[in-house]
């Protein structure tokens, strides 16, 4: 038996965390706790991304998802809670149906994933020889339109710009959608 390969150890640690908290999100009925578990799950996923060599994506995941999205989520929770703790019970039948369907899908996906030999991972000897390559600069150059890994392929300047504009539009639209409506009486006063 070989010595422990530490990335595998951390993979199982983080994936266990991520899955456990994802299940916790599913099972919890308190919306704020759900949000809390979700943050943890996402944080663990960010760790998985670091492990897969995508440290920039992981950092972005932390920064945007955890820092931004979830704050918005909780913001929404506070604005929409009519009681102190919002609990909405789901029918037991829904649970059963959901778990049946979900279980079937999970089985299929996992079976499919493990049925491909190339996806089983590399040999230990190869893994020990890995020297991590930083990915920030290639990603940055890719977003600016120049691919350093494969110069023959097109960069991502156009999608990047589209996403930027899209984001701007969405934010304006969201602000418009969410702004407080004036009550009828105040309009009449004007």
């Amino acid at each position: 038996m070989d010595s422990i390969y530490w990335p595998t150890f951390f993979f199982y640690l983080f994936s266990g965390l991520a899955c456990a908290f994802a299940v916790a999100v599913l099972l919890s009925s308190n919306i704020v706790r759900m949000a809390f578990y979700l943050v943890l799950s996402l944080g663990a996923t960010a760790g998985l991304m670091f492990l897969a060599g995508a440290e920039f994506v992981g950092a972005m995941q932390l920064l945007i998802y955890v820092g931004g999205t979830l704050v918005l989520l909780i913001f929404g929770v506070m604005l929409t809670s009519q009681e102190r703790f919002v609990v909405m019970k789901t029918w037991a039948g829904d649970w059963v149906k959901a778990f049946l369907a979900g279980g079937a899908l999970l089985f299929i996906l996992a079976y499919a994933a493990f049925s491909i030999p190339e996806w089983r991972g590399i040999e230990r000897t190869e893994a020990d020889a890995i020297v991590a390559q930083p990915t920030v600069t290639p990603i940055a150059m890719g977003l600016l339109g120049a691919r350093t890994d494969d110069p023959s392929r097109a960069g991502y300047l156009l999608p990047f710009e589209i996403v930027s504009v899209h984001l701007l539009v969405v934010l304006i639209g969201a602000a418009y959608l969410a702004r407080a409506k004036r009550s009828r009486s105040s309009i009449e006063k004007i």
Partner: protein
Amino acid sequence: MFNFPLANLLSEPVGVAHYVTVGAILFICGALCMATKRNALGVLMGIELVLNGANLNFVAFGSQYLRNDGHSLGLDGQLMALFVIVLAAAEAAVALAIALNFYNNHDSIDVDRADQLRG
């Protein structure tokens, strides 16, 4: 010699399949979340989980260390994941706005009450 499958679990590197399985678990948790939560924000969290599972798959396919045949999406996988993250943020903003409007109109965020489009 027959090896017990879990015997060298921690001593062998993981592969894409492991990541995909984790992604599938996250995805299914998210999907079930969407299917079972009556709270609109719960549905939104389910969506986040689904997207996250998908992201994990992208990253896994883009990683150079996870496949034994040397193929990978390379940078594309990571950039896809980045775009998904950004779009998810946008989606969350819009979804929250919708939820707020919904709340304003229904005094609740129970999605089961949003069935005006029932056939």
